[in-house]
């Protein structure tokens, strides 16, 4: 089973700060690395995803940095707002044994609190 190690487990920043969440994966031959944002009582929402052929991707205030050689990728939230307070999950695709299909392995999640 693919391991995805996510850190930190929780994070508190002040409004306007730049929280950084890190993920490390073991191995993959597949095509993308997504981040999900989940609010309490809601399903995970796809936030941003990156392909392994680029080192950085920006969408609004959210940036993914990808280091293929180190097998690491991170999420940066610029000018963070209280509304960004949520749990964030990274994920990486892995070929499911015996089926040939790829499934996502999720990190354990990071609870982010942005204080006003």
């Amino acid at each position: 089973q693919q391991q995805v190690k996510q850190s930190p487990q929780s994070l508190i920043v002040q409004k306007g700060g730049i929280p950084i969440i890190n993920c490390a994966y073991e191995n993959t031959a597949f095509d993308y690395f997504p981040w999900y944002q989940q609010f309490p009582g809601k399903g995970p929402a796809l936030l941003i995803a990156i392909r392994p052929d680029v080192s950085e991707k920006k969408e609004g205030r959210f940036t993914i940095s990808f280091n293929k050689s180190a097998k690491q990728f991170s999420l940066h939230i610029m000018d963070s707002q209280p509304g960004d307070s949520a749990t964030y999950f990274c994920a990486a695709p892995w070929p499911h044994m015996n089926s040939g299909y790829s499934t996502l392995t999720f990190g354990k999640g990071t609870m982010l609190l942005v204080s006003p």
Partner: protein
Amino acid sequence: DTEVTQTPKHLVMGMTNKKSLKCEQHMGHRAMYWYKQKAKKPPELMFVYSYEKLSINESVPSRFSPECPNSSLLNLHLHALQPEDSALYLCASRTGTNTGELFFGEGSRLTVL
């Protein structure tokens, strides 16, 4: 707004009840998934359907029975559940089992008494 719709949003059932969770997507995706999520944990894969055929069953107990009537619909039939089965059940879909991004529904919050 998510384009994966799940009903009901909340369900309370006894251990002897039979109930069903429903999921619908109209994005033309051919892979559909059921995940289970406990509080403060990541989603755990239960089942994967590819082109309406069950492709992956993650050794889920038989009290959970998935069904894929057509490419847009996915059901999860529940029978004789245990209190420890209480969780958020998430449906997700993807263009194909090896292509595209995975989109989740809002989930069905299940409580087993």
